């Protein structure tokens, strides 16, 4: 296990697209070694928070700080190469996030080349082993892999730089239930082995509480509730929106559905 676990401190994050505020004054801490979840429906800004952290969305205000053993002064600044070496992201759709004309070998060599890491050969083999694929997959193209195998490659690509923080954007929502279980188990095992910190976004409460100890509920760009996973499991939640998410995840029922349909607000056009 690594001795240099890292976390994140996010303060007053704000992301705007022209006049639309996608993320509005969101603050939270990811403790070193912790796994923290963000839930909410589409458009709530949960993915944008992850994208803002790794520099894929512009921050209009607020700060992101890598925390952990290093002092605040020496911690790498967001957006820089050193920060990215510590913080890597796994995207939602493994069909879209892997270059279709690059072999697995080339996909995994890219981050190593960018960061000038020498022993690519050995690292690629080790990364493939670690995600349970083996070197037989090394010279295949993404289209020759199943969805679950692709997501394992995406995880291997994120882990090959040996980061301390992994940003997971709906890592299993494009996968079948049985494959989802395999990928969740893999993520858990990797976290235990390497002492990683996870920041995971999902719309599925059961998946988030399986992997995370604490979570933040977002609605319309704001954080509406912070709750521990076991409190959520015991139904001790405060915000109305969290309650409706919990009802929804319990499945369809004729009585609550009639109620839900009546009380629902009209949806704003997206």
């Amino acid at each position: 296990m690594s001795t240099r676990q890292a976390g994140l401190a996010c303060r007053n994050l704000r992301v705007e697209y022209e006049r639309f505020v996608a993320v509005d004054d969101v603050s939270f801490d990811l403790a070193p070694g912790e796994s923290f979840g963000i839930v909410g429906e589409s458009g709530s800004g949960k993915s944008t928070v992850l994208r803002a952290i790794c520099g894929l969305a512009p921050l209009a205000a607020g700060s992101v700080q890598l925390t952990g053993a290093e002092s605040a002064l020496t911690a790498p600044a967001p957006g820089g190469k050193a920060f990215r070496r510590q913080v890597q992201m796994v995207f939602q759709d493994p069909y879209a996030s892997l270059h279709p004309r690059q072999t697995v070998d080339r996909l995994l060599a890219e981050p190593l080349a960018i960061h000038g890491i020498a022993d690519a050969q050995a690292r690629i083999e080790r990364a493939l082993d670690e995600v349970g694929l083996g070197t037989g997959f090394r010279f295949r193209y993404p289209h020759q892999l199943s969805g679950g195998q692709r997501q394992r490659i995406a995880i291997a690509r994120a882990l090959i730089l040996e980061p301390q923080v992994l940003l997971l954007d709906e890592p299993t929502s494009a996968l079948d239930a049985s494959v989802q279980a395999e990928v969740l188990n893999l993520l858990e095992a990797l976290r235990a082995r390497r002492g990683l910190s996870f920041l995971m976004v999902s719309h599925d409460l059961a998946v988030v509480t399986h992997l995370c100890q604490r979570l933040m509920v977002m609605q319309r760009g704001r954080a509406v509730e912070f709750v521990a996973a076991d409190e959520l499991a015991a139904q001790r939640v405060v915000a109305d929106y969290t309650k409706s998410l919990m009802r929804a995840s319990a499945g369809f029922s004729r009585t609550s559905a009639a109620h839900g349909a009546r009380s629902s607000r009209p949806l704003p056009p997206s």
Partner: protein
Amino acid sequence: MNPMLEVENLRVAYPAREGGFNEVVRGVSFTLGRERLGIVGESGSGKSQTGRAILGLTAAGGRVTADLLRFSGRDLLSMAPRERRSLRGGRIAMILQDPKFSLNPVMPIGEQIVETLRAHHAVTQRIAHAQAIDALAAVQIDDPERVFKLHAHEVSGGMGQRAMIAMMLIAQPELLIADEPTSALDVTVQLQVLAILDKLVAGRGMGLIFISHDLRLVSSFCDRVLVMYAGRVVEEIAAVELHNAQHPYTQGLLNCLPQLGAARHPLPTLDRRPEWAL
């Protein structure tokens, strides 16, 4: 009385690169009355291909055979393409997964609904317009006059899916095939859409085939569930009896989902047996 839909030994095959055919649906049989039937399986299990074959939407090059494929007493496979076309969207309708891709992007939503109605019923433009507005209101769209004029990219996923339901129901079909109708939607919106669908199906006495990968959702919504694996139905079960499922594949699918309040680390995974695919 005959059931509305009779399917016996349905097979769908596509040409393989090495020559010959790959069967993706391998002998599916079931009958459907005025009830809600769920078809569940993972990607590649043949569930969508089954639905498309019933509608006659199998992709070009595909080969559909069946001992029996009958809709209200009429053989679908020997029917002239013209007749089949008049059934499609009229007496049999299909709701597709993602409104972003299945609505026409360059035509206002309301016009698409009007087009569907006028393709199957001889009504004037005025009456069609009024009925389209009613249909949008029936799926709980608040300002139907406004939404009528909007394009697909101007509405949210949930509203797009409601518009598609309105479009599919306007010709008053007897059989509705819904292929993952709520998978592209948020959980809270999912339930609203299902509630609308439920009310309409119950109110009109339609037959419904609900295709989904989500075993729990389907079992909470349907009366009866077919579980498909590798192109075959491995188990048929009443939805309320789901927890008593016999087939190890069904049990495995139920078991591998994370559950709120039940810490299971690691999650049980599915141990796929080669004999399931025989």
